[in-house]
């Protein structure tokens, strides 16, 4: 159990390139934090600095109130699941999981008990005597997890652990990791490329770009109140639509789709002193105008547009609407999509419409847009001018609340409902059993490291 504080962490590699630049993140005890960002933005580097595999150029890394910058990985008591698992091929699954315990000179009986608990939890009981080479990808992934959880470390660090699994297994392992983290209540930092993992697993998500932390907030806050163009474009799939918007004198914006009225105070403030803005609207803020209630309809705007393509997916439907933009705006959007690592051609609108909508490709249609959910960005700096800080903070606070409740629930779950956990062999409530195991382990570890 540990809180991790990063204060102005900087990492410069030998060539002077700042892979991580002035990142400050406070991770609370028991929190699940996700690091996302395009390839090469410094996620792995940051994770490896937490665990101690990479020297920190500047700043403070504080774990449990102690500065650990100079501590070796073995003295930090963190466990890590590597991107490629890094299992020991010469050891059986059992010995792989037992490895950290053997190093800390845990008594054999204890090792056996804990390895078996972990293997039951991860459904590896049938494979304990096999070698990693003979396991499937998902099984190897679970062995790597087993090695990480067997030790009762202060925190888990995951570096894209699911990236090489197929979609089905990934979904399965995702829920497994989430359940495990809630149950053990251990601080977790998780690096991923995957939108779904980022949105579903984390209490908070840290979005990075070129070594710089852009925003750290609950998935919901990131989605609804992004701080800038980059975060807005990175979070969400299909991505947010960006349109050029000229500010007109009459409280409206001139867009390629037609004039759109400003509805909220924030929006009206945002346009002050700007001629051209980038308007960002999520696909689901649009709807087929025919299917919108009349009273709801008044809260937004309706425009008429030529639909290029529609995609009907059963439960939802997407329509693509191309629009014209000046060369300057087009360049900017292209740069943005390059930064985001996406290959979207962004001079088209992707909108989500009801699956019952009769809008068809090649025809024009009336589209309603919920203008309250529209964000306005400064085209030069990318700053979100309509971000509602309070609403955002509220969203993140809600998640924090939920997390506490979930952890409470997971801890108090009676044994009968938790078929797999630790406490099963000791018989009493799982909370007590876990605490007992935890303190015992730290005791033996200290003894072990003193002896070494």
């Amino acid at each position: 159990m540990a809180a991790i504080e990063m204060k102005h962490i900087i990492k410069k590699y030998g060539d002077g390139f700042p892979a991580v630049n002035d990142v400050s993140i406070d991770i609370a005890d028991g929190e699940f934090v996700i690091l996302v960002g395009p390839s090469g933005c410094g996620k792995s580097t940051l994770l490896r600095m937490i665990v101690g595999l990479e020297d920190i150029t500047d700043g403070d890394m504080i774990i449990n109130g102690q500065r650990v910058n100079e501590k070796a990985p073995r003295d930090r008591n963190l466990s890590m699941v590597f991107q490629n698992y890094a299992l020991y091929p010469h050891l059986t699954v059992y010995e792989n999981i037992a490895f950290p315990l053997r190093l800390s000179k845990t008594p054999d009986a204890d090792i056996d008990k804990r390895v078996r608990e972990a293997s039951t939890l991860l459904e590896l009981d049938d494979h304990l005597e096999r070698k990693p080479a003979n396991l499937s990808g998902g099984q190897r992934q679970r062995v790597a997890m087993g090695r990480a959880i067997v030790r009762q470390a202060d925190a888990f660090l995951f570096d894209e652990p699911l990236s090489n699994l197929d979609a089905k297994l990934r979904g399965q392992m995702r829920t497994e990791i989430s359940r495990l983290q809630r149950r053990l209540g251990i601080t977790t930092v998780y690096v991923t490329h995957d939108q779904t993992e980022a949105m579903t697993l984390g209490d908070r998500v840290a979005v990075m770009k070129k070594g710089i932390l852009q925003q750290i907030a609950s998935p919901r806050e990131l989605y609804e109140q992004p701080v800038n163009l980059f975060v807005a474009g990175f979070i969400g799939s299909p991505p947010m639509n960006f349109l050029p918007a000229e500010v007109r004198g009459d409280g409206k914006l001139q867009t390629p789709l037609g004039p759109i009225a400003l509805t909220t105070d924030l929006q009206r403030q945002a346009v002050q002193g700007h001629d051209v803005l980038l308007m960002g609207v999520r696909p689901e803020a649009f709807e087929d105008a025919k299917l919108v209630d009349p009273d709801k309809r008044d809260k937004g705007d309706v425009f008429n547009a030529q639909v290029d393509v529609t995609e009907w997916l059963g439960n939802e439907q997407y329509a693509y609407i191309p629009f014209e933009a000046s060369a300057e705006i087009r360049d900017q959007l292209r740069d943005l999509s390059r930064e985001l690592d996406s290959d979207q051609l962004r001079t088209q609108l992707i909108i989500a419409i009801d699956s019952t909508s009769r809008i068809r490709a090649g025809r024009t249609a009336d589209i309603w847009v919920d203008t309250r959910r529209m964000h306005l960005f400064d085209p030069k700096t990318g700053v979100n001018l309509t971000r509602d800080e309070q609403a955002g903070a509220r969203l993140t606070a809600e998640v924090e609340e939920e997390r506490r409740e979930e952890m409470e629930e997971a801890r108090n779950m009676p044994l009968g409902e938790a078929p797999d956990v630790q406490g099963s062999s000791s018989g009493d409530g799982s909370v007590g059993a876990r605490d007992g195991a935890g303190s015992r382990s730290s005791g033996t570890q200290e003894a072990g490291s003193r002896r070494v």
Partner: protein
Amino acid sequence: MNTSRKGQVGWIIGAILIMFYALLPVAWILSLSFKAGDDINNQKFWPTNWSFENYDIVFSSDLFTTALRNSVGISLIATFISVVLAMLAAYAVARLEFPGKSLILGVALAITVFPIIAIATPLFNLWRTIGLYDTWLGLIIPYLSFSLPLSIYVLSAFFREIPWEMEQAAQVDGATAWQAFRKVIVPLAAPGVFTAAILTFFAIWNDFIFGITLTSSEAARPVPAALAFFSGASQFAQPTAPIAAASVVVTIPVIILVLAFQQKIVAGLTNGAVKG
């Protein structure tokens, strides 16, 4: 179908020819070693009567048995030290960036191309002065210096194949650098370690030049050198057959070693370490 069968037949014929070429001298020595007394002049490939007389002679001669003891002792000790040192050096070469790294590799390579005979005489004089002449240590030291470069090359190639993450994982799991090396890297490099050990052992086991120049008595003389001093059953008989028997005896450990470790050498290196 047809061509592949033809190819197969070709392969088999080729293999037989090569085996015949390689094994004929061995078979001849084997047959010689079983020819008792004057039977070596029987003008035939095989002995007229199979006899163990030569083996009796060989094993009853102090010259051979002490030489055998010297050879076994010196080879094992030198091999062990050489492999341990090579392992540490190769690990540093494979993992660390340090000034003079290329110099070390260059010097190591230079040593392997150095003709052994060129340093035999200087060593002879040096050893006599400092008292290492005709001792086990006096042989072990030059053996080490000539076997280390090769072992370092073989082992550093193996170490380089092992992903960095193996060690990092071990360190995160609570291992010291030494524990990570001993419990993860060495076992993973085991095929390389065996390869290096066997190559070193063979080279030392078969060495003649140092064996003959740096020894003068039974105190340290190894088998290949001792064979040169061999006399037959009587002072006047040519010792050809007993020498053949002795050669067969010294070949046996080599064959046993190869058979025993061949499995280890070909075993896969980092199977299953990473996702697949």
